[in-house]
């Protein structure tokens, strides 16, 4: 039974612009983690760029804090740019 650390894998697809989290792999080091991620998560041409991060370096928000962290943003409509009218000539926003 090997105790290989867990790594989180992020892949950027061909047409996308940011790396998305797709899952995790076990590996002994960063090189192997990239290879395992390539073997596991790019079999069906899912991406062109791989990031791997040891899982221990990911800090996640506590689900118990959900209300405290995210509720307040729900009813602050003035923070959204909904009342700005885009001029017709402006593209790609």
């Amino acid at each position: 039974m090997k105790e290989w650390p867990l790594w989180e894998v992020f892949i950027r697809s061909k047409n996308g612009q940011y790396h998305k989290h797709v899952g995790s792999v076990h590996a002994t080091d960063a090189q192997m983690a990239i290879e395992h991620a390539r073997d596991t998560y790019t079999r069906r041409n899912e991406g062109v760029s791989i990031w791997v991060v040891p899982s221990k370096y990911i800090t996640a928000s506590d689900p118990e804090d959900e209300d405290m962290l995210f509720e307040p943003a729900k009813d602050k409509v003035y923070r959204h740019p909904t009342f700005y009218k885009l001029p017709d000539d402006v593209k790609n926003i």
Partner: protein
Amino acid sequence: MGQRLCEWTGVAPELEIDLALCNIALDHLGQANAWYEYLVEIYPQPTDVDQLAFCRDEHQYYNITLVELPNGDFAQTIAKMALFSIFNYYLHDALRQCSDARIAAIAARSYKEIQYHRRYASNWLLRLGDGTDISHKRMQKALDIVWDHAFEAFTPSPADRIMHQQGIAPDLEQIKALWEDEVHQLLHKATLSIPDTGFTGYRAKSDGVHTEHMGYLLAEMQYMQRRYPNLQW
């Protein structure tokens, strides 16, 4: 090689290794398929890919003995893969410049897959060789077992000579030099000793004379096709 690597399905040391070996096995099968499809087009008698792949007798196969050896433990599988894929890498690199356009195209596509095989196997050889006492012992033992079989790749068969004369195949002596250079450096870095070269008279490639393992491999590989000819899924 693809047939042997498939034997690791479900029983590899780690889940990710299982996936990697299966992927590599599929690469080999895909490459073989590409070569067979070309062969069928230029073959003097009408035939098809399945017939050539699955229905020949043992002496009609001309693979080198290295790829028919049993997997043994993971170290032995890696030893086979490393020695083979380094050879395969230089071979396909040269074949990309082949005067035959179809061969060059197949080689160009295979080359990218083989680059990965070479990296994968070499990295594992390094980790196992320069690893723990147990992994080092197993890796050295694996190398000692498969070493002699690798040299068959560089001994030209009559077919090799004809292809070289026609400018299709590269000079195997050159491939051998590149292979030895890389393998020696790799073994040195992995703190492994280069095994003594013993028997170099394997002639599966030239005469279809195989090791005792080939029969069992073919029995498993050919069973379905021979038992249910023209089987369709």
